[in-house]
C-alpha cells in the first residue's frame, strides 16, 4: 500500500504541523515541526490535505492563466503578429484582465434553459479536469496521491467531461449545442478505445499502473521504445481534448461555440478554465507516460524538468492548432476506427511479442525493442497513409498545381452548339 509519506509535499506540511514522534518526520518540517499541540494529529492530517488541495488548485489556476498567455503569445508568433503585450511585462497580466472582464459580464440565462442543469454543467466540466492532478506526479516525491491504478483513473476521469458537455447542451436548450453534444459523445466513444489500448505497451514495460512506478521505470523515455503508442496516445488525447484538428465539438466556424454557445460570464469562464486545465493535465500525462516524467540531469530540480517537458508538449499542441484545419466528423470517426485502432492493435501485438522475448529487459534489450518498434512504427504509418490518405498524393511535386491549367487559347469557351 502506498505510504502518504512518499509524497514530499505531504511529509513537509504534515511534519510542520504535527508534533508526532513519527520516525518519518526526522529532520523535516519547518520551524522544527510541531505547530499543533500533541494529540491533534488528526487535525494536522485534515489541514495537510486542505493545504495541499488549496495549493494545487490555485497552482492549476495560475498555470491556466500562464497557459492562456503563453498560447496567445505563441499563436501570435506563429501567425506573424505580436500577441498580447500591453498589460504588464510581455502582456503577462492580460489573462488576469480577461478574467476580471469575464467575471463582470452579465450572466445571461436563456429562458428556454433548464436552469439547474445549465448552472451545473460548467462545474461538472471543471471537476474531472482538476481531479486528474490528484494523481499526477510533478516531480521527485511531489505528488498528491500515488494510487496503484492511477493510469486507469486518469482515463476514467478524462471521459467524464462529456457528461458535462451533454448536460450543457441539454441545459441551454440550443440546437447548436445539441450538435456539439452529439459530436462529443461520438468522439469520446471512438477515441477512448485507442487511447486505452495504446497505453498497454507502457503498462507492459513498467509492470504497473501507478504513474510513479511508470516514471521510475523509464530509464529510457518510453516514446523511444513505444513510438506507435506515443503517436496514438497524443493523437487520441488531442481528440479527447477537442483540440484542432479534432475540435468539432466546439467548431466555431460550424456550430458557433457548440455547447458553450449560450454561456456567458463566469459560467463560460469555467468552461474555458476547464478546457485549459484539461490541456495542461493531458500534457502532464503525456510527459509522465512517454517523456520520462521528472527525469533529467541533476543540478536542475526534477520539478523544473517536468514543467519544461510539459511546456514542450503544450507548445506542440498549440503549434498543431495554429497550422491545421479541422477534419469533418465522419473523417474523424473513420480515422479513429480505421487507423488509430489498428495501429494500437499492431503496437499491442508487437509489444507483447517483444516482452515475451525479453521478459525483464536490460537497457541494451530496451534499445533493441526501440529499434524494432521504430521500424514497425514507420512501416505501419506509411502503410496506413497509403491506404487511407487522400486520393491525390499531396507529397508529389505536381500536385500543388492539381488540375489547374493556365489557358492562353482563344478557342471558344465551350464547343459551339452546346445548348444549356
Amino acid at each position, binding site marked *: 500500500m502506498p505510504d502518504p509519506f512518499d509524497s514530499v509535499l505531504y511529509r513537509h506540511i504534515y511534519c510542520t504541523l504535527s508534533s508526532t514522534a513519527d520516525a518519518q518526520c526526522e529532520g523535516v518540517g519547518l520551524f522544527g515541526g510541531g505547530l499543533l499541540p500533541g494529540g491533534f494529529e488528526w487535525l494536522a492530517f485534515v489541514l495537510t490535505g486542505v493545504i495541499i488541495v488549496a495549493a494545487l488548485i490555485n497552482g492549476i489556476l495560475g498555470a491556466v492563466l500562464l497557459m492562456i498567455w503563453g498560447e496567445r503569445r505563441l499563436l501570435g508568433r506563429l501567425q506573424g503578429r505580436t500577441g498580447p503585450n500591453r498589460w504588464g511585462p510581455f502582456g503577462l497580466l492580460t489573462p488576469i484582465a480577461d478574467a476580471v472582464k469575464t467575471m463582470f459580464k452579465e450572466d445571461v440565462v436563456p429562458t428556454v434553459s433548464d436552469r439547474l442543469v445549465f448552472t451545473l454543467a460548467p462545474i461538472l466540466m471543471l471537476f474531472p479536469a482538476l481531479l486528474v492532478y490528484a494523481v499526477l506526479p510533478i516531480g521527485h516525491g511531489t505528488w498528491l496521491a500515488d494510487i496503484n491504478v492511477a493510469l486507469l483513473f486518469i482515463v476514467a476521469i478524462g471521459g467524464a467531461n462529456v457528461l458535462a458537455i451533454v448536460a450543457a447542451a441539454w441545459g441551454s436548450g440550443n440546437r447548436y449545442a445539441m450538435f456539439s453534444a452529439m459530436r462529443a459523445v461520438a468522439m469520446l466513444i471512438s477515441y477512448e478505445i485507442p487511447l486505452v489500448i495504446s497505453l498497454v505497451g507502457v503498462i507492459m514495460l513498467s509492470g504497473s499502473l501507478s504513474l510513479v512506478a511508470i516514471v521510475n521505470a523509464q530509464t529510457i523515455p518510453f516514446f523511444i521504445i513505444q513510438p506507435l503508442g506515443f503517436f496514438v496516445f497524443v493523437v487520441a488525447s488531442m481528440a479527447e481534448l477537442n483540440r484542432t484538428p479534432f475540435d468539432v465539438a466546439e467548431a466555431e466556424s460550424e456550430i458557433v461555440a457548440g455547447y458553450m454557445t449560450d454561456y456567458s460570464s463566469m459560467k463560460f469562464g469555467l468552461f474555458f478554465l476547464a478546457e485549459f486545465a484539461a490541456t495542461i493535465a493531458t500534457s502532464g500525462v503525456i510527459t509522465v507516460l512517454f517523456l520520462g516524467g521528472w527525469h533529467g540531469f541533476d543540478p536542475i530540480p526534477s520539478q523544473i524538468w517536468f514543467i519544461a517537458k510539459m511546456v514542450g508538449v503544450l507548445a506542440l499542441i498549440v503549434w498543431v492548432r495554429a497550422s491545421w484545419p479541422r477534419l469533418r466528423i465522419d473523417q474523424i470517426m473513420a480515422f479513429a476506427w480505421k487507423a488509430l485502432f489498428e495501429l494500437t492493435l499492431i503496437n499491442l501485438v508487437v509489444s507483447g511479442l517483444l516482452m515475451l522475448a525479453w521478459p525483464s529487459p536490460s537497457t541494451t534489450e530496451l534499445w533493441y525493442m526501440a529499434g524494432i518498434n521504430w521500424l514497425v512504427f514507420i512501416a505501419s504509418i506509411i502503410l496506413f497513409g497509403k491506404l487511407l490518405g487522400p486520393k491525390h498524393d499531396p507529397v508529389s511535386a505536381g500536385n500543388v498545381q492539381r488540375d489547374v491549367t493556365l489557358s492562353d487559347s482563344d478557342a*471558344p*469557351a*465551350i*464547343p*459551339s*452548339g*452546346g*445548348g*444549356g
Partner: protein
Amino acid sequence: MSSVTAFTASGQELAAEIETIAPRAVTATGDFDAWVAPDRLIDVMTGLRDAGFEMLIGVTGVDYIAYFEVVYHLLSLSQNRRAIVKVRCGEGRIDPVVPSVMEVWRGAELQEREVYDLMGIRFEGRGQMKRIFLWEGFEGHPHRKDFL
C-alpha cells in the same frame, strides 16, 4: 480600346434571328435590342438558348410609368456574343405579368424574385412568387417610380 458593344448583336440581327425561331414575335427593334411579345417569350427564349445563348446574364425590370419593361441580357459562351431582349408587360400599371423563363434558365430563379420583390412584376409559371430582400407583408414595390 475595344468597344464593348462589338460583342453585342445589333437589333436588326437579333430580330432576324428571332424571326427564324418564332415568326412575328418581334414587335420592335433598337440599336442593340429587340422587343418581343410577352406571349411568345418562352418560345423565343428557348430558341435563343438552343441557338447558343447558354447563359442568362441578367433580368431587369424598368418602370417607364406608362408601362413596365423586363430586360433580359443573354450571353453566348460558345459564340462570344451578347443579346438584349426586352419585353413590355402590357399597358397600365396594374399587376404587370410576364412568363417566367426559369424553365429555360435556372439562373432566372433569384433574379426574377428580385424583380418581383422590388418592381412588382409577376412571373407566371414558376409557382407562388416570394419576396427576396424585403419581408413578406411589405407594402408596395420600392423600385417603382410611384414608391417614395
